[in-house]
C-alpha cells in the first residue's frame, strides 16, 4: 500500500494550520503522574467470574478506600463499628475538625463489642434541619450502583452514579464514585468487543 502525502505537508495553508494545531497539542503536565497514581490504586479485578460468590468481596476490594474497607468490615460482621464511625463523620459539620478516633478502625477479629452510640454527642450534633445528604446517603447511592453493576445492570449503575454526581457534586466519596464509574466503563469496553459505534 503506497501512502499518500499528508495534508499537513501538501495541503493548503489553512488545512495545514488546522492539522498542526492538534499535532502540537500535549496532555496536561501532571497527567502522567496522576495516571500512574490511578493505576497504582486502581480496582483489582475479581478473581472469580462475575455472578459467582466471590464477586462481592472482590468488588469490595476493587473499590478500595473507605467504601471497600466498610464493605469488608461489614463482611466481617463489623458493620456496627463502621456505622458508628459513619455516624460520627456524618454528624461532623463541614469544616469542623474530625472527631478523635477512640479505637483503631482496622478490622482485626475477634472484634470487640461495638461501643454504644454517643447519644449526647449525637443529639448535640443533630441539626435542626437534616443536612442535604449525609455520608450514609452517599454510601447508599454508591452501594446501589455497585449492586446494579454486580447484577450486570450497567445502566442502573450509571444512573445511580449520575444521581450521586447531581446530588453530591463534591461528596466525601467522590473518589470511590470515580473508581466505580471507571469500573463500569471498563467493563462495558471489554464487553463491547469490536468497536461500538
Amino acid at each position, binding site marked *: *500500500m503506497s*501512502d*499518500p502525502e*499528508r*495534508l*499537513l505537508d501538501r*495541503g*493548503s495553508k*489553512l*488545512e495545514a*494550520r*488546522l*492539522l*498542526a*494545531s*492538534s*499535532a*502540537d*497539542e*500535549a*496532555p*496536561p503536565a501532571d*497527567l*502522567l503522574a*496522576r*495516571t*500512574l497514581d*490511578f*493505576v*497504582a490504586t*486502581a*480496582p*483489582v*479485578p475479581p478473581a472469580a467470574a462475575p455472578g459467582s460468590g466471590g464477586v462481592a468481596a472482590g468488588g469490595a476490594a476493587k473499590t478500595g478506600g473507605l467504601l471497600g474497607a466498610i464493605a469488608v468490615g461489614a463482611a466481617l460482621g463489623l458493620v456496627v463499628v463502621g456505622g458508628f464511625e459513619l455516624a460520627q463523620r456524618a454528624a461532623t459539620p463541614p469544616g469542623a475538625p474530625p472527631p478523635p478516633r477512640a479505637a483503631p478502625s482496622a478490622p482485626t477479629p475477634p472484634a470487640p463489642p461495638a461501643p454504644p452510640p454517643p447519644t449526647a454527642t449525637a443529639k448535640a450534633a443533630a441539626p435542626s434541619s437534616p443536612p442535604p445528604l449525609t455520608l450514609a446517603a452517599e454510601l447508599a447511592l454508591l452501594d446501589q450502583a455497585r449492586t446494579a453493576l454486580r447484577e450486570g445492570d450497567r445502566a442502573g449503575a450509571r444512573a445511580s452514579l449520575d444521581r450521586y454526581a447531581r446530588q453530591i457534586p463534591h461528596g466525601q466519596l467522590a473518589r470511590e464514585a*470515580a473508581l466505580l*464509574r*471507571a*469500573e463500569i*466503563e*471498563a467493563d*462495558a*469496553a*471489554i464487553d*463491547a468487543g469490536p*468497536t*461500538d*459505534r
Partner: protein
Amino acid sequence: MSGGDPAATPAEVSARVRALVTAHFAFVWRSLVRLGVPRADAEDALQQVFLVASRKLDAIEPGREQAFLFGTALRIASRARRTHERRREVLAPEPHEQLDPAAGVDELLDLGRARAELEIILEAMPLDVRAVFVLFELEQITMAEIAAVLDVAPGTVASRLRRGRAHFQAAVKRLASTERRS
C-alpha cells in the same frame, strides 16, 4: 489487576502496567480528545482505557500495545461522545461552539481557534472515518499500520481515509469562504 502471565508476580504486573502508561499515556490522551472526548472528560476516559488494559494484559501481544490501546480508546470515546451529546441537550454549548463565525483570518490562525475549528470539523465525521483520519493525518501512522491497529482490510483504511479527507477539505473550503465573506 490481571496479570496476563499467571506466573507474573503482582510487582511484575504493576511494573508492566506502569510501563504501558508511561509509554502511551500521551498517545491515548491525544487519541481520546481527537476522537471527540471533551477535554474535561479526557482524564477519566484515559483512566478507563488503562483500567481495561490492566485487566486485559494477557490479551495484549508484545508490540501491539498501541493497537490495543487505540481500539479501547475508540470504544470508550464512542460511549463518551454519546454521553456528552446527551449532556449537551441540557447544558450550554462548549466554548468552541460559541465562536464568532465572522472572526478574521488572523484569529482563525490563532492556535486555540484553529484547534477549536478542527474539532468542529472532526466532530461531524463518522467515528470510523475519524479514527483513520486522525491516525493518518495527525499521528502520522502508515496505512498498513492503521489496518493492523483497527483490524480492518487495507482497502477499508484507504476508503475511510478518502472519505475523511473529502469531509475535511470540504469543511475547510467552507470555512475559508466564510472568512473571505466576513
